[in-house]
């Protein structure tokens, strides 16, 4: 860390509770350690001293029972009767959410401390020297500034709610402590990610959350599909991480440091729009496309729904997947020096938003709908941070965390209930397919209302949180079509302003589709007749309070989260631009650079028109869905015919997975096996050179021994040939 920049002891926050910022990640880590230990204690049965003495004995039924995991979401089909709760369930229920509560309280403390002091510089807390190597003086430093504060609040706040929800959702799972251990670990890494004071430390969190995501997606690992999904998530993320790594190499080689503050400081000295800044930004963005599921690396996120639903809510909606957005905002200085990269970010974001939304239109699995919705919304956020409207992007990140967490948890309760119903009747139908739902509003009214709140928020109905953030993003794009570095740059020969117009158009189109598919989901799930089954219907009832409680809190946030950053246009309803001011020290300068020093300016009229269009689109989408879709006509999954044409393409997600498999995965494996291993390794190197040279030596030996005929005549001849050769060598030198 640059000591001149942050005289640590002198920082105003050092005197406040914020000096305990290092405890923020440590609390969940502690939770992980406790829960992890309990998980091991619960599952493990230490083997005999001499394992080879008796390898195939019996008497392992209890171990088997302990480890028994489940085939599908929530509860396994094979366990008949009510399974006993885990023996450590009590303490785990206390520790798991408890550390999050504590962390959230601490985060709030930090937040208020931060509000109470004037801070010009981020607050840096160095724990220890990490990698002091050569020119690379990396420390384990936490960086607390308004941006990370926002993230910390979201993570601990939403995280806390989801932890509490999980107590109910996972209560009967045999892997209960393991689940909370992973979840705590995730929060730890997520906090490291947002608090990391250097890119490598950020990367630690970045990969750490990926790891937890891997573990949680594959939480019910006995099902191959789940394990596959986890692995896919990790590997796809690694592709992105490769980009992140290269970006760090570029930073270190060209800027001489990997500290976030120093990089930001040095980046602005790079030539505007130069190759280095662009390369760094693009490689960083490659990292983001992995973590935040953007084209082309979005494919893992829908599969990630294999994990328990609260996990989907926490990791694959509210926090981890938004890390990419955070990274772009965090690296605002770099991005602002590379308009081409910014355009790329915005365009990719817009395309993703559009593309995912189309797929979302035709999904039947309730979680898949939400997954594609998440991908789509993440695209929105990238549009925001891409065009340099960092506040808008982060704003959408926050509101999205609220409403999407709510949607996922709501769907979680639905699945929980559905599952409980199917479980009670030993039915093996799909508890997540909307075709098996319908009419649930009467059985779970709380969930029903809360989810509608979130749906309206995501659709962009005015005064709900999503409306504000989405509108701000679209407005920002529009504002930058003229008079910004972006408009002046060109991307692949297309003028920046044109690109921005395309982005804007795509944004509007996605907004429309968002409204449609969300309404569709709501209609099919909660409205119309119930299709669950006669026997199951009596078992449908609202989830317990420990699950609905967090939903209520999230519902409030989803509804009123927009007040965080009220646009000037609606100044009447609350304080204008709260988040904007809050984040100004972090991203303000970079944002201004994109807009050429002036605040983005739209005339009042234009703004009203834009807002009007947005509202119209949201309403139109909902109306279209309500009118066109007939929940009553739907039949349960097992009776549904296979879809055709464009429906089939959409339902199968454009066959992108299959395409990737055919284009990358299978060729890699095939080439590795046939060409590299069998061909080069076994064939050429081993066969030809290694064994070949051994064979050659043997062949010479064999020839020599064949010459050894046992006939004296031969020997004399050979001798004479030797004589002649020698004499020749002597006389004809």
């Amino acid at each position: 860390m640059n000591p001149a920049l942050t005289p640590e002891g002198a920082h105003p926050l050092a005197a406040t509770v914020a000096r305990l910022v290092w405890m923020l990640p440590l609390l969940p880590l502690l939770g992980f350690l406790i829960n992890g230990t309990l998980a091991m204690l619960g599952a493990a049965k230490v083997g005999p001293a001499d394992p080879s003495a008796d390898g195939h004995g019996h008497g392992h039924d209890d171990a088997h029972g302990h480890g028994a995991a489940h085939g599908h979401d929530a509860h396994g089909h094979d366990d008949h009767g009510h399974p006993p709760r885990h023996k450590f369930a009590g303490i785990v229920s206390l520790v798991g959410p408890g550390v999050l509560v504590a962390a959230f309280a601490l985060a709030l403390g930090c937040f208020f401390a931060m509000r109470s002091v004037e801070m010009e510089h981020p607050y840096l807390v160095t724990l220890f020297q990490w990698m002091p190597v050569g020119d690379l003086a990396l420390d384990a430093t936490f960086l607390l500034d308004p941006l990370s504060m926002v993230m910390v609040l979201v993570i601990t706040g939403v995280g806390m709610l989801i932890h509490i929800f999980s107590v109910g959702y996972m209560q009967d799972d045999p892997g209960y402590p393991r689940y909370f251990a992973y979840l705590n670990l995730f929060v730890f890494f997520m906090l490291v990610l947002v608090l990391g004071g250097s890119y490598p430390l950020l990367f630690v969190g970045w990969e750490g959350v990926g790891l937890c995501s891997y573990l949680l997606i594959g939480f019910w690992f006995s099902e191959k599909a789940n394990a596959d999904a986890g692995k896919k998530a990790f590997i796809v993320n690694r592709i992105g991480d490769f980009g992140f790594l290269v970006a760090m190499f570029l930073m270190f080689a060209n800027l001489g440091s990997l500290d976030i503050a120093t990089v930001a400081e040095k980046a602005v000295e790079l030539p505007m729009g130069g190759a280095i800044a662009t390369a760094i930004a693009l490689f960083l963005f490659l990292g983001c496309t992995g973590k935040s599921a953007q084209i082309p690396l979005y494919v893992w996120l829908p599969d990630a729904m294999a994990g328990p639903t609260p996990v989907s809510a926490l990791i694959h909606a509210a926090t981890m997947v938004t890390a990419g957005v955070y990274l772009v905002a965090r690296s605002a200085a770099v991005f602002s020096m590379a308009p081409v990269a910014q355009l790329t970010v915005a365009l990719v974001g817009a395309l993703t938003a559009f593309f995912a939304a189309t797929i979302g239109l035709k999904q039947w699995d309730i979680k898949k709908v939400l997954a594609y919705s998440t991908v789509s919304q993440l695209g929105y956020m990238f549009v925001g941070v891409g065009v340099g409207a960092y506040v808008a992007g982060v704003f959408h990140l926050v509101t999205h965390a609220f409403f999407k967490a709510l949607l996922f948890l709501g769907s979680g309760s639905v699945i929980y209930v559905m599952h409980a119903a199917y479980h009670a009747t030993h039915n093996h139908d799909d508890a997540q397919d909307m075709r098996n739902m319908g009419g649930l509003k009467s059985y779970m009214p709380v969930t029903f209302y809360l989810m509608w709140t979130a749906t309206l928020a995501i659709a962009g109905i005015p005064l709900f949180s999503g409306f504000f953030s989405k509108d701000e993003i679209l407005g920002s794009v529009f504002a930058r079509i003229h008079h910004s570095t972006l408009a002046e740059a060109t991307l692949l020969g297309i003028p920046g302003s044109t690109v921005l117009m395309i982005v804007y158009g795509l944004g509007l189109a996605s907004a429309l589709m968002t409204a449609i598919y969300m309404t569709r989901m709501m209609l099919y799930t909660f409205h119309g007749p119930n299709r669950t089954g006669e026997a199951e219907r009596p078992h449908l009832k609202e989830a317990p309070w420990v699950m609905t409680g967090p939903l209520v809190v999230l519902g409030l946030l989803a509804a009123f989260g927009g007040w965080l950053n009220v646009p000037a246009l609606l100044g009447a309803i609350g304080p204008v631009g709260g988040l904007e001011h809050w984040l100004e020290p972090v991203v303000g300068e970079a944002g201004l650079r994109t807009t050429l020093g002036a605040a983005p300016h739209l005339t009042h009229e234009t703004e009203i028109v834009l807002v009007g269009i947005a509202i119209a689109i949201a309403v139109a989408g909902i109306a279209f869905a309500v009118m066109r879709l007939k929940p009553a006509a739907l039949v349960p999954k097992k009776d549904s015919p296979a879809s055709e044409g464009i429906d089939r393409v959409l339902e199968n997600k454009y066959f992108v997975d299959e395409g990737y498999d055919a284009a990358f995965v299978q060729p890699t494996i095939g080439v590795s096996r046939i060409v590299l291993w069998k061909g080069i390794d076994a064939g050429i190197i081993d066969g030809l050179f290694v064994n070949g040279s051994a064979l050659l030596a043997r062949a010479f030996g064999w020839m020599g021994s064949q010459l050894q005929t046992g006939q004296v005549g031969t020997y004399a001849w050979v001798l004479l040939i030797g004589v002649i050769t020698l004499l020749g060598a002597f006389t004809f030198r």
Partner: protein
Amino acid sequence: MIFDLANPSQLMQAFGPDLLLMAGAMALMLWAAWRPESHEHQRAVGQASLVLIAATIGLTLWFSTRGLQSTLGVIAVDNFRWATDLVCLLGAFGAIALGMEYNVRERIMPAESHVLVLFATAGMMVLAAARDLMLVFLGIELMSVAIYVLAGLNRRSAKSAEGSLKYFLLGAFASAFLLYGIALIYGATGSTNMVEIGLRVVGGNFSQHPMMLVGTGLLLVGFGFKIAAAPFHMWAPDVYEGAPTPITAFMATAVKAAAFATFLRVWIEALGGMGDAWFSPVWWLAAVAMFVGNTVALSQRNLKRLLAYSSIAHSGYLLVAVATGTLAGSAAFLFYLVAYTLASFGAFAVVITVGRAGDTNNELVDYEGLWQVRPGLAIAMAVFMLSLMGFPIFGGVGFFGKWYLLMAAIEAPRPLTALAVVLVLTSVVSAGYYLNVVRVMFMKPRPEGAETPAQAGALTRGVVFVAVAAILVLGVIPSRAIGWSRASVPRAPQMQAAVVDAPR
């Protein structure tokens, strides 16, 4: 003391150890023939021979410590001679020691067998001493004629007879070349004395003299045959296989040592000035011997044959020392010779132990799983193999032998770096068969029903033990042996001044 070799009585004195051995051998010959053939008699003569050899060794050692010198004459009185004598005498001692027990097993009755070893040794000592080509020829023939007979010692064995015949016919054939070579050199230089030849070679322009060139070439053929360097090696595998194993060991070590010693002396003392002429032929001879010996050994399944090819390869290694043409090379040669003799003798002693009556059980398959039944024997054999391979510590002194050779090669005035590379690469090939022996002994299971080799006699065990101990001890502390080899390079009187390359 400086012997005046022109004075017959001093000449006799300078010949002391040789004369002792010859006289003793003749006496023993009479005694051996005196009694009817029996094992007891054979043993008694063997014991007497051992005593005689021990006495000769003592005398030689005594001579070697007296700092003797001589005037120019037919024989040399220098440490190189004593060192070679000692190697040959030790070889003879070992051969007789092994032979006494082997002969009982193979029912070889004639007590003369030991005496023939003594005669052969006498020839070797003549070779070691020879400073006149006439004595070289005489020594070689004295040695060879005895060996021809020894090779065919086992009258029950057709193989033994065949080996003997082959050795005899080809040996005589090669002797003729050697003799012709001597004649031509005599014709070119007018002398058969090495030192005189050497002086004339240095003085005159002989490197273009056709008679001299052909003579040198034929000399090389003759020596090449005796040391079994490819392509003059063809006899060796057959004879080694056919001959009684103790005699094979004797041939592989002592015969080779003596032939090499005189070869080296001729090359340094007489033909040192012909370096331009013989350098590349010797180079190639060394390379071919290493290559042929090591590759053909790969396809051998009989231990005796395998060791025969190994000895051909070792001739190649030793030829590297000859090719250096330096005194450092001679020191390296002696050192290597000791290392090689120990390992080779030990290996043959193991072959004798594992072998069974009728000279059978010598195939590689008979060694399978030896470790499980006779661990000590297997470990000893492994040490010999690794030593022959030139492996440090576990192969003991074998490594330092190679090391010395390589050092001499690299530091030669005409650097033999390429030959050194050939040496190490062919050593790699040699690992293919040496390690194969180790592998067979240690890693293969003992075949069902395979008989456990019987405990060998005390003498054989003694040979194995001494060889292992010497190899391992010298492999860790070789300094003393290095010192001896350096002090034992050939030193002709007139060369004292000409010595430019002090051996390291």
